């Protein structure tokens, strides 16, 4: 690998090489320069990290595009086939003609699918500036080549070893002679030609075939083990005859004293030319495992959507009196999560999901008090006032865009700490994109079809193969995110029975119509290949990576559509219950809220789901009485909302509890018991269990207690009485649920990975700026001789003050751009391309192409001016 290659890629090379056409670019920068604005925009869109900061010119852009971090990022975002093409290029000669690459991908026999798919892959690599050069001279950028080429430390995914030339680099000429001779080649004393002869032999299919025909069977077995990699093998100091046979002919070359390697050319021969054992030109299709009627899917999803709302409301209600404490490290304790899970009647994993959804939608948050606790936010109350479908759309929208991954809750981070629900370190940048991609793939299936999750995961793996460490440790975060997405979408009601619902589809603007399985990141196989090898750059909508985030923003605005589709499917709230003699009430559907709230106080919820089953108990009736209802109110309430007559036992229960309710009254401050019935007080006093309350009879109808009122109440209740608490004025204290809220809180902002997706305006501006900078550094001046002292490449022009003034004035009149040398206020020399607008008072007001804005320059700071060869405006 040439040491100066980076320079060559970035800068104008001094010499010209070989046979390239006159238009053939010699560097990446030059290759970029030949692109249209759209091409540059495509590059910047695909690799937005190049935009931060905006590069000064194309040379800078090319240099930045070749940095290791940026290249790694770009490679990680390639689909499997494109990556395979890049890997093949990394083991091909540099530069490699297109047909060589095709040979490496398709093998000697050829493969129609690969032939059809390869132009797209090369086009994508070109678009992303990972490959440049025309079809005769495809060059992989050097950093990518270093990353992908095989080395003993980093075996290539192709399983190929070093070339003969590389493997024989340190070998003694004598040894080389012996190999040549044994292999049946004419001897030469020049090591370089010896290596070339050996390489020729290995790459010549016929001669190589003949050579291998003479090999002992065991030797072929050794080759078989090495051919698909890893290509390295251990040998003893005294190798077996078959190994020796191979070693003598250079089919195994020594790496160290105990290791040998199968040279790349030989391996390729054995592989019939193929760089990959399994090239995967086609994205694996996502296949449906079952199909349901779309109505079934939609209604199932709507039912689940309703459950989602009910669950979040229940969660907030649970926390109305103040939720669990915030751990010092942030988040919720495992115990609180368990408690929440029990309260919601779900598993902890699912409870964590609901917590995160509510948190992500800004409905719950820490309250920020000294003794910090979680609680519903004011936004929750606003949310609660929305129609059901809109409430759902809020949740689903927040979920889609969230970078927090609830699935991680309960697992351990690298330091062995358990990740807490609502805690830190749950953000995963890839989450929103994976979610959206999964749903988009679902959207590609026929309406009502639920996918085979395995094929879905296979497809995602194809689109984003794992590289490096992730592949070795097997922590495939994207696959986990994807399977979480499937579960979570089902829980939220985005999907029903595994298939994307109509309202779920509406969350994905630009999603494909049902039944159009959508080839990712690009083009259907069989894209026309142009003479120059340029395939049209994939359009924005097809770039899988970018597709996610841009749509995420659009989706926020498009919830209304989803809500509108969902609204008619939501179960209609009912306004009545069925009362039964076994003291249960059944609400045969979701209840209108005021009704549900009252009933929740008056009775205990026994079973939830499409309907709600309530059970009346003395305790629940007492709770309602405690909340300030009178027995008559309760009777009226039940009569008004029951479709059936109120059963006698229920009416009796209410009267019976009411009869005793408040019979005993307990003072808060002075702790007393009073009762009109002095026998009751006598009974209490006589009861041994009242001893701990230390009661004393004050009057026939009043007892005083030493215990505090709460303990007193508890004690009396445990003795079977139903005392009521009483204020100092003698009124009954009413215990009524109130709603605790945090101060106003904003929802956590998503933390996307990498810089934000640039919008069209920014892209346009960036392209213009880069162009201008590039013009400034590379433009050919009209009249070089007229600017003595400014002749050298890149040196700013020097002209006299008068000349400067005249040229600038002329330019202002014609509206043309000029190139100026300029000394900034700090004394630094720079050069700019400006289009003067007016010249007055010793200042030039001009549009600065370099800075992309109108600026004013003092004339005395302009060191020189030159006209441009072409008009840049």
């Amino acid at each position, binding site marked *: 690998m040439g040491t100066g290659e980076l320079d060559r890629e970035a800068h104008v090379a001094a010499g010209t090489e070989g046979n390239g056409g006159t238009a053939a670019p010699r560097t990446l920068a030059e290759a970029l320069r030949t692109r249209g604005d759209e091409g540059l925009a495509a590059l910047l869109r695909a690799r937005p990290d190049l935009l931060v900061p905006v590069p000064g010119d194309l040379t800078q852009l090319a240099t930045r595009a070749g940095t290791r971090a940026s290249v790694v990022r770009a490679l990680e975002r390639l689909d499997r086939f494109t990556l395979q093409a890049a890997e093949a290029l990394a083991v091909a000669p540099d530069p490699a003609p297109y047909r060589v690459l095709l040979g490496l991908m398709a093998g000697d026999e050829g493969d129609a699918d690969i032939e059809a798919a390869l132009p797209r892959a090369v086009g994508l690599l070109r678009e992303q500036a990972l490959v440049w050069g025309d079809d005769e001279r495809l060059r992989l950028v050097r950093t990518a080549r270093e990353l992908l080429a095989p080395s003993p430390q980093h075996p290539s995914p192709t399983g190929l070893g070093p070339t003969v030339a590389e493997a024989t680099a340190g070998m003694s000429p004598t040894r080389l002679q012996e190999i040549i001779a044994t292999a049946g080649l004419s001897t030469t004393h020049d090591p370089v030609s010896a290596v070339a002869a050996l390489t020729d032999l290995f790459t010549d299919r016929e001669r190589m075939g003949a050579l291998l025909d003479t090999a002992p069977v065991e030797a072929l077995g050794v080759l078989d083990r090495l051919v698909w990699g890893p290509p390295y093998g251990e040998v003893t100091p005294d190798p077996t005859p078959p190994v020796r046979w191979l070693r003598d002919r250079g089919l195994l070359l020594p790496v160290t004293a105990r290791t040998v390697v199968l040279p790349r050319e030989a391996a390729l021969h054995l592989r019939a030319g193929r760089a990959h054992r399994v090239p995967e030109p086609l994205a694996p299709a996502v296949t449906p495992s079952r199909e349901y009627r779309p109505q*079934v899917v939609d*209604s*199932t*999803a*709507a*039912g*689940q959507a309703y*459950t989602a709302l009910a669950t979040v409301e229940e969660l907030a209600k649970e926390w109305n009196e103040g939720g669990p404490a915030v751990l010092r490290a942030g988040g919720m304790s495992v115990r609180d999560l368990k408690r929440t899970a029990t309260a919601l*009647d779900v598993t902890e994993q699912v409870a964590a999901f609901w917590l995160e959804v509510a948190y992500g939608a800004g409905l719950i948050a820490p309250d920020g008090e000294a003794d910090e606790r979680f609680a519903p936010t004011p936004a929750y109350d606003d949310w609660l006032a929305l129609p059901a479908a809109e409430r759902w759309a809020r949740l689903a929208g927040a979920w889609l865009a969230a970078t927090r991954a609830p699935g991680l809750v309960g697992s351990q981070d690298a330091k062995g700490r358990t990740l807490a629900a609502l805690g830190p370190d749950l953000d995963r940048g890839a989450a929103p994109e994976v979610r959206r991609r999964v749903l988009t793939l679902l959207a590609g299936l026929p309406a009502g079809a639920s996918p085979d999750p395995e094929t879905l995961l296979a497809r995602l793996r194809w689109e984003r193969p794992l590289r490096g460490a992730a592949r070795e440790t097997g922590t495939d975060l994207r696959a986990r995110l994807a399977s979480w997405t499937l579960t979570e979408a*089902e829980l939220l009601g985005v999907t*029903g*029975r*595994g298939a994307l619902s109509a309202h779920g589809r509406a969350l994905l603007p630009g999603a494909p119509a049902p039944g159009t399985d959508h080839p990712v990141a690009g083009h259907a196989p069989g894209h026309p290949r142009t003479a120059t090898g340029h395939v049209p750059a994939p359009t924005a909508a097809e770039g899988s990576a970018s597709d996610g985030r841009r749509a995420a923003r659009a989706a926020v605005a498009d919830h209304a559509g989803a809500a509108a589709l969902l609204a008619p499917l939501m*179960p209609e709230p009912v306004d009545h219950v*069925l009362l*039964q*003699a*076994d*003291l*249960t009430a*059944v609400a*045969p*559907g979701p209840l209108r809220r005021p009704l549900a709230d009252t009933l929740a106080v008056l009775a205990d919820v026994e*079973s*939830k*789901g*499409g*309907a709600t*089953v309530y059970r009346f108990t003395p305790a629940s009736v007492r709770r309602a009485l405690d909340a300030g209802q009178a027995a008559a109110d309760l009777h009226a309430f039940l009569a008004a909302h029951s479709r*059936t007559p109120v*059963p*006698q*036992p229920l009416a*009796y229960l209410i009267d*019976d509890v009411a009869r*005793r309710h408040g019979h005993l009254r307990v003072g808060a401050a002075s702790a007393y018991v009073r009762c009109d019935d002095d*026998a009751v007080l*006598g*009974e*209490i006093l*006589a*009861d*041994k269990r009242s001893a701990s309350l230390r009661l004393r009879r004050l009057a026939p109808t009043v007892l005083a207690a030493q215990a505090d009122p709460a303990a007193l109440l508890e004690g009396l209740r445990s*003795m*079977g009485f139903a005392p009521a608490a009483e204020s100092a004025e003698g009124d009954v204290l009413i215990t009524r649920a109130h709603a605790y809220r945090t101060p106003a809180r904003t929802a956590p902002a998503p933390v996307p990975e990498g810089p934000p997706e640039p919008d069209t305006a920014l892209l346009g501006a960036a392209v213009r700026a880069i162009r201008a900078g590039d013009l400034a550094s590379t433009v050919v001046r009209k009249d070089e001789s007229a600017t003595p002292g400014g002749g050298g490449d890149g040196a700013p022009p020097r002209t006299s003050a008068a000349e400067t003034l005249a040229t600038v004035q002329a330019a202002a009149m014609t509206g043309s751009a000029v190139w100026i040398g300029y000394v900034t206020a700090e004394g630094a020399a720079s050069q700019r391309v400006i289009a003067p607008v007016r010249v007055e008072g010793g200042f030039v007001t001009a549009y600065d192409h370099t800075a992309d804005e109108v600026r004013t320059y003092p004339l005395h700071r302009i060191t020189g001016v030159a006209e441009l060869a072409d008009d840049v405006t």
Partner: protein
Amino acid sequence: MNGPLIVQSDKTLLLEVDHERADACRRAIAPFAELERAPEHIHTYRVTPLGLWNARAAGHDAEQVVDALVEFSRYPVPHALLVDVAETMARYGRLTLSKHPTHGLVLTTTDRPVLEEILRSRKVQPLVGDRIDADTVAVHPSERGQIKQTLLKLGWPAEDLAGYVDGEAHRIDLAEDGWALRPYQQQAVEGFWHGGSGVVVLPCGAGKTLVGAGAMAKAKATTLILVTNTVSARQWKHELVKRTSLTEDEIGEYSGTKKEIRPVTIATYQVLTTRRKGVYPHLELFDSRDWGLIVYDEVHLLPAPVFKFTADLQARRRLGLTATLVREDGRESDVFSLIGPKRFDAPWKEIEAQGYIAPADCVEVRVNLTDAERLAYATAETEEKYRFCATTATKQKVAEALVRKFAGQQILVIGQYIDQLDELGEHLGAPVIKGETPNAQREKLFEAFRQGEISVLVVSKVANFSIDLPEATVAIQVSGTFGSRQEEAQRLGRVLRPKADGHQAHFYSVVARDTIDQDFAAHRQRFLAEQGYAYRIVDADELLAQDADPDLSGA
């Protein structure tokens, strides 16, 4: 979507009974869902693993279950529930018990990891023998019931294909002269016979004995019948002679007094569980003949030693009969795994609607303790409290008032405490039957009651079960065995025999207000309330006021 069924997330199914498709829905879900509550408007079914496995055993598959749920459901069925149904049902049949020509009873699997999993369980290890091959393991024939029970608890129910022994053949026919099995009895017999073994649940007074006789006529083999007490044994014998081709000589009684073993033998649980010197001498009765059928009457009372022995009888057909399969000890699942799954279940109200049991008016009468009693109650020791409030003097007054109100009808007064009953008997001038009453005396009194010679009978818990008193129309319960649900149901059952004139039965439960008596009563009533019996609650004062005012009293 306007089905009668609402599927809840806790796997209960709510069925709206007034819906036009309610009947079709009930039929569709009955094979796999357990009827849990049947009050007037909405019946509650529960989907349990056991129910799903029983459905599998009866030849239903997950698809049918899911279809039934989806078809009748008003709201979308939660996907998770459907998945769970499919997964649960898929667990059944991975293990099979069968007869191997050379190795005897073997357990085979179609899913090797499952076999490995269960063989690692410490509970399974002592029950199995040698590993025959990778998929098969020998099972000790005596542990057939035990291993089925254990596997059920482990969540991998075994399908039992080992079959039943036919037993010693003995000709038994139903003598259907002028009567016939009622349709639901016929269904129960068919359901049982089709399933091989199992439990039939029918309300009190719905003719469980005839289901037993029907099953015997199907088996046509020697039969062992296990009953709760001697009086019940006599009734069985009487009924069998009347309803089948069997003669007195063919039916033996095996009890404390007689030890006859005949082709059809009726034994009491009590004699079987008599223990001498640490052994149960009478358990060999099970082996004394080659029984082709074993009938367990009142299977909810099955005592623990019989449980254990039943586990060894898995090769014989077993029929369990009960009205109330609720056990306060929570061993319902043992009944299911040892006797067999529930083969037939009829809600009480349904049988009532068909006119086979009398409609009943259930009333809870709340009496107030007097002030002195309240004071005494408050100071009573915890274990004495129930006795204290259950035997309050006010209850006597109420009982007397009720007896006056229903004068002329056949009235049973039922209680727990002998002192209380003796006192009541004295006040009402009625004979008392209690534990110490000799059997002969009991039968005499029962017979006199049946004939109408006595109109009021005071009985202790000895009359809870199996006593056939067709003419009783009013039952007054003054105290009971704490919160026993099945006792309450059985006591109501005493008055449910259909009346000749079709009139209503009355069941009064007298309860002391604001005491644990009231809490126990609420618990006791639960089963009946869930069966749709709505208790009215009246104040004793009201009742006594009516009694005092002759214009309002009586009917």
